[in-house]
């Protein structure tokens, strides 16, 4: 087990290292790094200062070392647009993105599992066929377009829900969150459903496949023979057994939700990391781009590491195979 974790941590470190090379190379090779890191309005003194602090008069490996040292100290440059340290700017936006992603995850479970179990229990009914057709559509629909259509129908035509922003937020353990106020909830609903759409389809399919397999098992038949109520069989015996694959896949997909929140946040002007990076790319705010890339890679490496380790605890075959190779 320890060997496995050490190997995985080393692998993660290599990924971060390669990524820092890529970002460093991208910034340096694609354009003039001074142009990249200094805003166009900066005066000569500011330019000199940046050139010295980045060590641009030194060979590339010294420069790379400086870049890494600065990054490790949390110094990834200042945003041109906001004038604040880029890292701080992004860290401030993380709670909003995580709130959206978690809301979408919850949505996927709350909507996906009942629909999936229903269509698995009664696969021949018309409702089940509609659910399955809907899930195919959920896979094919481009997320951003669905978001636009949500805004058009629910915000513009019906005027039921607000289309932009986070609404009223309240502090919770030092973070400001939207889901505790009614106004915040109404702002959260559309983006969360939009982001969850793909995952709902996924959960429906998993829950349906699981249900169809489990209902024919002996323990379900035995529970019936024992005279248990249908409700108890479904909610206790069946649910427990279909949840294992659903929970595993959802854990794996959480990273995907954070990545896709870039799209949803842009559509609904949700003030998270994703909207910040798109604004920064469009506004050529390069320090923020560099900082975002490093942070998102770090977040992903950590998510993947945790998932791998959890997986190896749940399924010992994974780590045995890995140690062998």
């Amino acid at each position: 087990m320890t060997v496995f974790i050490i190997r995985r941590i080393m692998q993660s470190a290599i990924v971060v290292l390669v990524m820092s090379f890529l970002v460093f190379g991208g910034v340096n090779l694609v354009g003039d790094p001074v142009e990249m890191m200094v805003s166009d309005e900066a005066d000569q003194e500011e330019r000199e200062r940046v050139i010295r602090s980045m060590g641009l008069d030194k060979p590339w490996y010294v420069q790379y070392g400086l870049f890494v040292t600065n990054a490790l100290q949390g110094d990834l440059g200042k945003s041109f647009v906001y004038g604040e340290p880029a890292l701080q700017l992004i860290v401030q936006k993380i709670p909003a993105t995580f709130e959206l992603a978690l809301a979408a995850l919850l949505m996927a479970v709350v909507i996906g599992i009942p629909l999936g179990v229903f269509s698995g229990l009664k696969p021949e009914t018309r409702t089940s066929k509609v659910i399955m057709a809907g899930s195919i559509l959920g896979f094919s629909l481009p997320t951003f377009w669905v978001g636009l259509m949500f805004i058009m129908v629910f915000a513009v035509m019906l005027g039921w829900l607000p289309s932009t922003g986070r609404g009223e937020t309240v502090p919770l353990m030092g973070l400001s969150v939207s889901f505790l106020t009614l106004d915040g909830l109404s702002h959260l609903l559309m983006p969360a459903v939009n982001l969850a759409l793909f995952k709902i389809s996924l959960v429906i399919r998993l829950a349906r496949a699981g249900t169809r397999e489990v209902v024919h098992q002996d323990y379900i038949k035995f529970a019936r023979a024992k005279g248990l109520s249908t409700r108890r069989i479904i909610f206790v015996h069946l649910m427990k057994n279909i949840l294992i694959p659903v929970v595993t896949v959802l854990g794996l997909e959480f990273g995907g939700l954070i990545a896709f929140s870039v799209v949803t946040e842009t559509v609904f002007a949700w003030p998270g990391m994703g909207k910040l990076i798109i604004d920064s790319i469009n506004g050529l705010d390069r320090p923020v781009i560099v900082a975002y890339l490093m942070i998102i890679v770090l977040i992903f490496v950590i998510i993947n590491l945790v998932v791998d380790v959890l997986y190896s605890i749940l399924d010992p075959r994974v780590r045995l195979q890995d140690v062998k190779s």
Partner: protein
Amino acid sequence: MTPPVSEQTMEAPRPSVAEIKVETPFQRFRSDFFDSGVATAAFVVLGGIFFIAIFAPWISPQNPYDLAQVSVMDSKLPPGEKSMTGMVFYLGTDGAGRDLLSAMFYGLRISLGVGVMSGVIAMCIGATIGLVAAYFGGRTDTLIMRIVDIQLSFPAILVALILLALLGKGVDKIIVALVVVQWAYYARTVRGSALVERNKEYIEAATCLALDHKRILFRHLLPNCLPPLIVVGTIQTAHAISLEATLSFLGVGLPVSEPSLGLLIANGFDYMLSHKYWISFFPGIALLITIVSINLVGDQLRDVLNPRLQR
């Protein structure tokens, strides 16, 4: 000769061996494929979409990017309105007075072009790498598959976004980004089937004939790995089209001079809040029809080409 199809032959047990032999593999594939009504419909729709994309300049009511034909006076007209010169805009016009239907035809051309092109390049690169991994095995295989695993642990949209943030906008750049995102899927697919094929006798025979590696890889191994590759290729092309539209919508994909469907939808976003829904709505429908029909064709291909399901 195949007997005329009647109620009885439909119900009869499987035809005799002699009759099967008359059918070439391609004929069997074709009749299996068109067995499903949904797949046939999707195939026809997809054919129509490709026809529109290829012949867009000749069948569009107007050239939406020729300034002489477009008048700002016609901007933001709802579907069915007539222009100053009497031309009917069946799907309305966009913010610059362009006929939306024509703009969609041109957009389809760019969307499909980028999707198919990146799919083909990624397939060539990924298939070669996958073949090499499976054929040589050992350390080469371990290294390549580790890289594939690591890359696939990052969502496609994130990898593409990182690349485009570093590279900038442009048709060539988005194709590069889409190729980088996709090659790993092809490599994994090809490696999987090549591992099975590698141990078969014909490869052994080819090795005994002392054919060089290149010939064995591409003339013997590759053709036998094609069916799964074609299926993955179809599904991946749909993904690529969807991803390109998303990136272009976000403003990091194609430049404004190359208006794909994603960019058309993005342009309409600004007008949507003032109830001018059609500018975003119709290009989205076109995108949806394209993606769904490619996916349906891909699903049917998977069923037909899967040897385990062969009747």
